[in-house]
């Protein structure tokens, strides 16, 4: 897979989550204010390692962080968990 293909695939992951959150506003409403979602792919382990580091940085910055894990379940495509310090 080329770098461009990989980048496009990952942009799609972010947009998939953004679309899910706008189509299911109750999910976002249940979350704390001023929250940052960090995506975790169902397949890409390298990406997940980098994003795990990102969570630590965001917490250090004082942000509220929600871990958004992609699942393989089409009826429930995302699993959310609030990350605490």
């Amino acid at each position, binding site marked *: 897979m080329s770098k461009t293909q990989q980048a496009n695939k990952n*942009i799609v992951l972010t947009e998939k989550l953004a*679309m899910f959150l*706008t189509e299911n506003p109750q999910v976002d409403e249940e*979350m704390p*204010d001023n929250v940052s979602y960090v995506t975790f792919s169902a397949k890409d382990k390298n*990406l997940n390692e980098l994003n795990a580091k*990102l969570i630590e940085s965001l917490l250090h*910055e004082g942000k509220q962080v929600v871990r*958004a894990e992609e699942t393989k379940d089409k009826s429930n495509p995302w699993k959310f968990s609030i990350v605490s310090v």
Partner: protein
Amino acid sequence: MKNPKRRTGKLYKNKSKSESLDLLPTITNEILLSEEDRITYVYVYNLSKNKKRNIKQTHISYEIKVLNKWYTILRYDSAHGYLHRHTIITTNPNNDIVNTDGIKKRGDHHKWMTWAINDIKRNFFHYRSSFLKRNKDIDR
């Protein structure tokens, strides 16, 4: 016993390392992509001995204008020592999706800033249409 008044070079070096970014000069610039699309980039720098700007932190955002109001829909920053993207989900800018996927990993703040600006120039239409698709009521 060492003279307590004597300062070593190492101490001075540590002091400059811990220099607050708030005290450094900041530059803000805009690039207009169209009447309704713009990139704003901000960088904090210090000057090297040869008067070259060493960028210490950078922040790049992409804004769109809808009904005379500007919205930030995407931003990049290098605040944690590596470049990452914040994708704004709705018109509420406080909630976002943060990730490092598909983003330049190697390099320094200067290279990251150039990469982020070029990414927005290349993909702004895609970012814009995705945001508007999610927020269909924005122009009503």
